């Protein structure tokens, strides 16, 4: 994967990425956050600021704390120390403004739902307590499907979609929440490079109006759409892409390796 993409990074230097404006209005703020699941700390004294319309890729080795970081941002777990703020509120309160996309491997691939059924789930919490979804909810869901280019497949069973199509539907579901922030957990997992490129293009388009944070297990590859790369391995390090772009791909990769070793987590390991 790495060898195929030196150009992507090289072009960043010349490309105008209009980087995120952190000072104006932080979307996510982590201050001295530590977290442990009854054992050694998974996240230790993490500080992170994500600005409006940033496109953040969170990378790091398996077990390094990427998913934990995402769960902290969603308020699914509470930090042992420090504070997490999303859109100026506690994550639990801000949840309704977060569009979340889980790893699709968690879902039952044979569940009897249509594409539109799945996207409508994004309207939960805004739709009526009892009875069917309103016409307005359906309209929002259809618009979201249109944005990911899947409107024509709205009646297709979810079970009969390809991997890339499923990811698009799950992104549409997150969009149907009418969010200000998208949190995506490994959206590129198990997709072939061509489909990944299409999906990055879609995310780049959505990034024009939304802040995006995505987790990736693939640390050898950094898309040109990213504005910030966050390395998580118990500790958290932020790298603006403009800074990274001055280095060659090989340098950056080596640098990440050093950084990850720096964390000295017991299972720190880099898979090329």
């Amino acid at each position, binding site marked *: 994967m790495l060898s195929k993409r030196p150009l992507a990074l090289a072009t960043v230097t010349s490309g105008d990425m209009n980087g995120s404006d952190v000072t104006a209005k932080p979307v996510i703020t982590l201050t001295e956050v530590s977290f442990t699941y009854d054992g050694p700390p998974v996240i230790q004294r993490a500080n992170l600021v994500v600005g409006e319309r940033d496109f953040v890729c969170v990378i790091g080795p398996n077990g390094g704390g990427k998913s934990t970081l995402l769960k902290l941002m969603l308020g699914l777990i509470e930090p042992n120390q420090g504070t997490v703020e999303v859109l100026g509120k506690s994550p639990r309160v801000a*949840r309704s403004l977060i569009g*979340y996309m889980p790893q699709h491997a968690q*879902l*039952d691939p044979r*569940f*009897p739902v249509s594409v539109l*059924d*799945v996207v409508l*789930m994004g309207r*939960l919490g805004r739709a009526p307590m009892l009875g069917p979804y309103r016409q307005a909810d359906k309209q929002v869901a259809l618009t979201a499907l249109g944005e990911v280019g899947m409107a024509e497949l709205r009646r297709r069973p979810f079970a009969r979609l390809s991997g890339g199509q499923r990811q698009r539907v799950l992104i549409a579901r997150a969009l149907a929440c009418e969010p200000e922030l998208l949190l995506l957990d490994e959206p590129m997992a198990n997709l072939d490079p061509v489909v990944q490129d299409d999906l990055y293009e879609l995310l780049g388009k959505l990034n024009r109006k939304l802040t995006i944070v995505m987790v990736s297990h693939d640390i050898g590859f950094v898309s040109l759409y990213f504005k910030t790369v966050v390395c998580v391995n118990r500790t958290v390090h932020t790298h603006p892409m403009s800074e990274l772009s001055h280095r060659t791909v090989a340098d950056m990769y080596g640098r990440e390796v050093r950084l990850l070793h720096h964390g000295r987590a017991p299972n720190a390991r880099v898979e090329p």
Partner: protein
Amino acid sequence: MSEFLEALKHSVLLQHALLAGVAASVACGIVGSYVVARRITYIAGGVAHCTLGGMGAARYFNKVLGWEWLEPLHGAVIAALLAALIIGWVSLRAKEREDTVISALWAIGMAVGVLFIARTPGYYEDLMSYLFGNILLVSRDNLVLIIGLDLLVVAVGLGFYNKFLAVCFDEEFSRLRGISVEFYYLLLLCLTALTVVVLVTIVGLVMVIALITLPVAIAGHFVSRLWQVMLLAAVISAALTTTGLAVSYQPELPPGAMTIALAGGLYLLVVGARRLGTKRVSG
């Protein structure tokens, strides 16, 4: 078959049986679809076997202690709801393994039932009708209770359709949308318990699990949205219980067992036909 139709005109017992079968089928289609989609059929199995404890105890209190108002069916409702809530609580909160607890409840419910029945006159017939069902023994009062439970299950199951669908499909996402996942999971288990009770009167507690899963499995081969599966499964289930009753009438065979045998046969037929069909298409 013509004899069955003739008898149906005069026999209140048969009319009750037919009505009970159709009512149960509606609940079965709706709740069975959730249960199969969420993959918790083993919970339904555990709850079904626990009802023996409730029925046995209620029968004992009724016959031996003279609590006339307490019918075995009431005991079944209490035992099923109790079992569902315990299993739900364990899977949500406790650190015990869920499957271990289900197996334990399964056996304990049976054991309590057998002990109570052993101390109650009429051991053998009671046990047999609880285990294998006897749709022809559905009394007028029972029928009222069955239809009441049925309406409750259908109203709740359909009223919260969107919530149940989301919670069954993606728990974490639902929680993030502000849905109380725990509440809806427990509610679904309670609906499952009530459906099981209704079905126990039709096919008996041993065979309940077949009537919950097979019509849904058959429907799943033809339609692909959950509400469509519910509708088709309810129709299939009603057709099966009615046919089971009709076919078993003249040779005097147990209708519950006949219904399940028909369901199993239909399922194998559909799966077989589908396999042949796909083979032919793929060459």
